[in-house]
């Protein structure tokens, strides 16, 4: 049962462009939506997160857009840099003691 769907599977952008990564979910009880990034040989690390009280969250070049009605959220990476190349995971969780579910990941490559 895939509760969090992520697309695209892989994405290549040029340096300076905006990368857009998409996720959707099914369970209406989800109320916390983080994004993690994972560099080769390392563990996932929290990048940015949002709760449904907001429809947008910004942190530097990283922005989450959240659409509660359509059950979708996306990560926008502005002015992409080669150092942003990594696998990005979206996740969703609720407060009912159910462990977060992760999307399948998007492998982002930023070409100089």
């Amino acid at each position: 049962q895939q509760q969090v769907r992520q697309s695209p599977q892989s994405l290549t952008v040029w340096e300076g462009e905006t990368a857009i990564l998409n996720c959707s979910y099914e369970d209406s009880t989800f109320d916390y939506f983080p994004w993690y990034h994972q560099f080769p040989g390392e563990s996932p690390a929290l990048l940015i997160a949002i709760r449904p009280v907001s429809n947008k969250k910004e942190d530097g070049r990283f922005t989450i857009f959240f659409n509660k009605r359509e059950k979708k959220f996306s990560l926008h990476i502005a002015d992409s840099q080669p150092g942003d190349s990594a696998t990005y995971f979206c996740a969703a969780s609720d407060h009912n003691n159910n462990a977060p579910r992760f999307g399948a990941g998007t492998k982002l490559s930023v070409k100089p």
Partner: protein
Amino acid sequence: ETAVFQTPNYHVTQVGNEVSFNCKQTLGHDTMYWYKQDSKKLLKIMFSYNNKQLIVNETVPRRFSPQSSDKAHLNLRIKSVEPEDSAVYLCASSHRVDSDYTFGSGTRLLVI
């Protein structure tokens, strides 16, 4: 230093052997998790522990079992490993299920 610590980093074993992986967090978190990350980078929740109480037990094979002495430690035992158990096992912790995760560096298991 406050973090999530996993040992060993890497383990090679033969089919049928028993293995144990250790995880300790010094972040004061109340909840710990084990995830399995396969060769396609998919992250699958295996177990969640909240103050030594199992709150999520996904449909993992019965040869897998979590072991916890207190809320700062969550070990993983595999009774009789099989080839499909080859993967990276990631331990994580958080204050609550709907808050930020901190992952350990992972244990890479190779079953031959």
